[in-house]
């Protein structure tokens, strides 16, 4: 019985932690880590999607999910660069916060390109898929060019 109660209390606590509307006490380090995690997920989706686009693997209906994942992640970009989150081993360059309008344009381009890619995948038109994927790549590259530290 005691064990049961303990389990109940535990789940209640965990439940409270993720209640909708709760405000997280995000540190700068958390913000940076979260940004890195989302970027890594984008990289995973795009790497996987590229193999479909290049015809290297069969699609069992999952290209659409990768495309959706990309569009979701790209839509989140605008929330990932809170002021002060350029801490630790961050590749985000100061120019992101110095030229917020330019940066906003660059991530909007990524958001639109990934939406268009997702729509192209839905259409099933191979040529459109290839062209839209190229646009996604251009948006990634264009933004990394100015706003990310060279990590090679």
């Amino acid at each position, binding site marked *: 019985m005691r064990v049961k109660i303990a389990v109940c209390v535990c789940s209640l606590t965990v439940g409270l932690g993720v209640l909708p509307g709760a405000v997280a006490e995000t540190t700068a380090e958390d913000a940076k880590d979260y940004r890195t995690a989302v970027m890594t997920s984008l990289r995973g989706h795009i790497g996987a999607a*590229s193999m479909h686009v*290049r015809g290297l693997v069969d699609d069992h209906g999952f290209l659409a999910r990768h495309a959706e994942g990309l569009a979701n992640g790209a839509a989140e970009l605008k929330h990932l660069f809170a002021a002060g989150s350029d801490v630790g081993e961050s590749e985000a360059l100061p120019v992101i916060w110095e030229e917020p309008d330019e940066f906003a344009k660059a991530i909007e381009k990524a958001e639109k390109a990934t939406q268009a890619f997702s729509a192209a995948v839905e259409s099933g038109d191979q040529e459109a898929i290839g062209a839209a994927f190229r646009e996604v*790549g251009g948006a*990634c590259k*264009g*933004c990394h060019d100015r706003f990310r530290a060279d990590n*090679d």
Partner: protein
Amino acid sequence: MPTTTRLRLLSRIAVAAIVAVVGAGVALADVADDVAKQASDEDQVAAGRYLIHAGGCITCHTEDTVDAVPLAGGRAMESPFGTFYSPNITPDVETGIGGWSDDEFVEAFWNGVSPEGEHYFPAFPYTSYTGATREDLLAIKAYLFSLESVSMPAREHDLPFFMSSRTAAGLWKNRYFAAGRFTADPEQSEEWNRGAYLVRHLGHCGECHTPRNRFGKLLQEQELAGNPEGSGDEKMPNITADPEQGIGRWSIRDIEYFLDIGMLPDGDFTGGSMGAVIDDNTSHLTREDRLAIATYLKSLPK
């Protein structure tokens, strides 16, 4: 009409007719020559338009601004030896290369000497271009000369005192520069040789990716093994077939795709100066040429 007069008249008509026919023939032959010449000129310009991308001319000879005029020069190139500003290579006679002859153009690439007989600093990568064929170079010239002239005087280089004279460039060349055309390796495939020509000479990949000694000499025995000094803040990665330090784990297809779109095999996208190389140059090449480049890179010693 007396017979003699008639004959004379007939012969005159005949002569006139012959003259007319021959004349027309000559005129037609001239037209045909002109058409053929025009077609070959157009072919040369088209070849040059392609080679401009293979040679990576645009990136350095275009200022790094949104509204920069292509190939009119003005880009700053930072190096451990000072900052160089690229010159205008549009056909403007006063500030560009409009007054250059074919031989002068080729001489600049093969031997690093300007039409005025001055030595170029190796910021202009004649150290690589020296291997290019005359045919390719003249196609590049034909394309450049087909462009609109832009008046844009060259900006003075910003160099330390010991580099401030062209004599310094001459001394450097004397010690570290060896002129010479590319010769195909008969032991290797045609694809490998094409890749070697593009990588070593036209594409001048080693200018950034090969380490240098403290005098800026390229250390060819470590070809494309990376240059930590790099350009500006950028470190240039090792692109040999080394699986740890280089790109040995990338397939030939991965490399081709990277040069086309800029994606690394793990889904990351390059930015920085390689992003510009892809946008301006390698993405404009044929897939065959990118595969040739990849084939050559994969053959480099680990």
